[in-house]
């Protein structure tokens, strides 16, 4: 299991969310958009100035700022195993 924050992920990399840190407005909004533990995500790319980040979640596109992505921990190894199946 290799867990890194979503900010550290590179374009094209995918994984499964293992944890979302924090509550309150930001913590809730992140989860309400479907970014909850267990969800599979893929980094599509980043904006011209490297922020925000563009991701795929269940085949749909989302974008969030890097400082928001900091709260999302992703297990990158887990997803790779799945995709290799």
């Amino acid at each position: 299991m290799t867990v890194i924050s979503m900010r550290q992920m590179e374009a094209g990399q995918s994984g499964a969310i293992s944890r979302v840190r924090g509550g309150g407005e930001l913590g809730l909004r992140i989860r309400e958009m479907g970014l909850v533990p267990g969800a599979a995500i893929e980094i599509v790319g980043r904006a011209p100035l490297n922020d925000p980040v563009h991701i795929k979640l269940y085949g749909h596109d989302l974008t969030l700022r890097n400082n928001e992505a900091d709260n999302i921990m992703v297990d990158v190894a887990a997803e790779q195993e799945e995709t290799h199946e």
Partner: protein
Amino acid sequence: MSDQSASDRSTIVVALAGNPNAGKTSLFNKLTGLRAHVGNYPGVTVEQKWGHLEYQGRSIKVVDLPGAYSLNSYSLDERVARDFIINERPDLVVNVVDSTNLERNLYLTLQFLELGLPTIVALNMMDVAVARGLNIDLTRLESGLNVRAVPLVATSGQGLDELLSCILEVADRPDKDWRPLEISYGADIDATLGQIQAQVAASTLPVDRMPARWLAVKYLEGDPAVEQLVTAEAPELLEPLAPVRTKLRVHLRATEDDELDGAMTDRRYGFLSGLRRVAVTQTRRDTREISDTIDRVLLNRLVSPIFFLVVIYGLYQFTFWASAPLTGWLENFFEFLSETVSGAMSDGLLKDLLREGIIGGVGGVLGFAPLIAFMFAGISILEDSGYMARVAFILDRIFRAFGLHGNSVVGLIVGGGIAGGCAIPGVMAARTLRDPKERIATILVTPFMTCGAKLPVFLMLVGAFFPDHQALVMMGLTLFAWALALVSARLLRTFLLPGASAPFVLELPPYRLPTLTGILLHAWERTWSYVKKAGTVIVAVTIVIWMMMNFPRLPEEEQAVFDDRLTVVENQLEQATDEAAKASLEAARSAISLEGDSAALRHSLAGRLGSGLTPLSELIGFDWRANIALVGGFAAKEVVLSTLGTAYAMSPEAAPAADDESGDEAGGSEEDALILSLGARLAAESAWSPLAAVSLMVFVLVYAPCFATVAVIRKEIGNRWAIFSMVANTVYAYLICLVIYQGGHWLGLG
């Protein structure tokens, strides 16, 4: 049972809810067509749309709730939606969901179900879901959530009949109680939840309006509005409840390293993911190939800024180019009207009031209507196609640094970020921003841009004082406007609107082809609400300003002096035979009459205000004439130039060079003429220096927005900010000009 027949005849109230991009607007338009009304939710500037329709002899009122992902009370839109449901108790909710993204969309559905009000899930975009190989088992979905579900394609109207009969069925069900859905949050949370629910049920909280279970859930989540409610209505509950919640929080942090509110959201998603496993099967891999391909090009790091510039320039050109003929026709029409009136009436105050005050005011209001219509048609295309969300994505990093949002750029550019825009549609464009702080800041700085009405003043001053560097100075003004807007936004967001923005997390909807109906309806709604809401205020203020500039009249003896001089010249003119003498007498006649106008203007309330302000304005280089012009400019910035002309007793017709120019329309060449003659006059005036000219240009750029813009600001974000924009911008302009003028003098530039 006796009220059954009564309810048969009464109107069914349906709240229409859904995630942004789920197709809620399409369904609303399909249901209510052109019969929609627009107003505000009580006490807030969030817009409420509603419409009526008849189905099988029953009258149905559809209220469009703001697009929402949830019903928590952090965002204004969601709080408004929630308050509407709790306070107005609609008969039912039609929750539009995107069938291709059930897991996320049903989260909002759960929020309604936890509240307990009857809900119909409208499974929109069913056609796309089927094409992508999604198979939704309706029966399982309905029983899993205990709701009714209706497949729908809102854009084509497919499934509309089924939805409507389902609405009647649900509205007429015999048992009208709300039945909250009870989701299991896991053993630990459920135990505490039960405990709190029992205490809430026995308390003085209004459990007849809000189910005890729901209040307990929201209290555990730490929902700010419910927290407030408990403090206000049942403070005795805080003592027993708070420790219970704290204990659970501590427990969760220790055992699962998680926050309580977050954990509860996760459990709801767990519930939905279980539901999806039983109710949805996927026969093929879900793809959005076309949309993904477009994104690969348009969101490419190198292509995206260029394509964005092309699109935004296109929007700007489209707005001003497409509206120009209509604006021209409207101008001609009002000119014709005004000429007809002056032909039909005898000279006098009433005629002037009718011509300049009323017809001018109404013409001024309607003159902006084509601009607003076309800009919103353009914005509607950007939004409906899915590109607007991408604009936010591309520009967010830059605008965030100034406390704004990526989408702020649209209002700023339309407002004059490309010289020649207009702040009215610019301010209205900020509607696309969801965060109130970012929206207010964007709206307040939009009037700093170089709008089309400020341009003639700039052209006049630049032509007179910087004849060799005209393009450079104009360009500098535009850049200065941008810098000022961004820095001011930063100041606003630091001192007056502090605090973090709402989370950015944003959906990039798949690209879709906008529908013509959608575009036209959107443009029509915006334009009509502008004419109706801002229009009346603008006409009223135009009349007030007109009166300020015309009253009090010159005292009779002073007027008589001018009249006598005129009579003398006219008599001489009658007797003159020689052409040269005639010409010089005619010139003398118009000079006297202009002198009279100038004296009258100085005598008026606006003139006195202008003179009274001279001690202050001298410090930034303006004489009383400039002051009057600036007072007049409050009605509309176009007035600055013509008033300055009157104050200097310059006539628009008296310019020599103008007629040589190509066969321009009368209005244009008159203005060009005034720009030239007034410019020459100011350049010759010892009181005016290039430094004073810069000071005046900056002042015109920054000071109070024209009243039409203030009226729109008031409509968008309320009275307080509208007054703020007038007062603060004027003070701000004064301070900036003080630095420029006094600093310039100190540096020896005066």
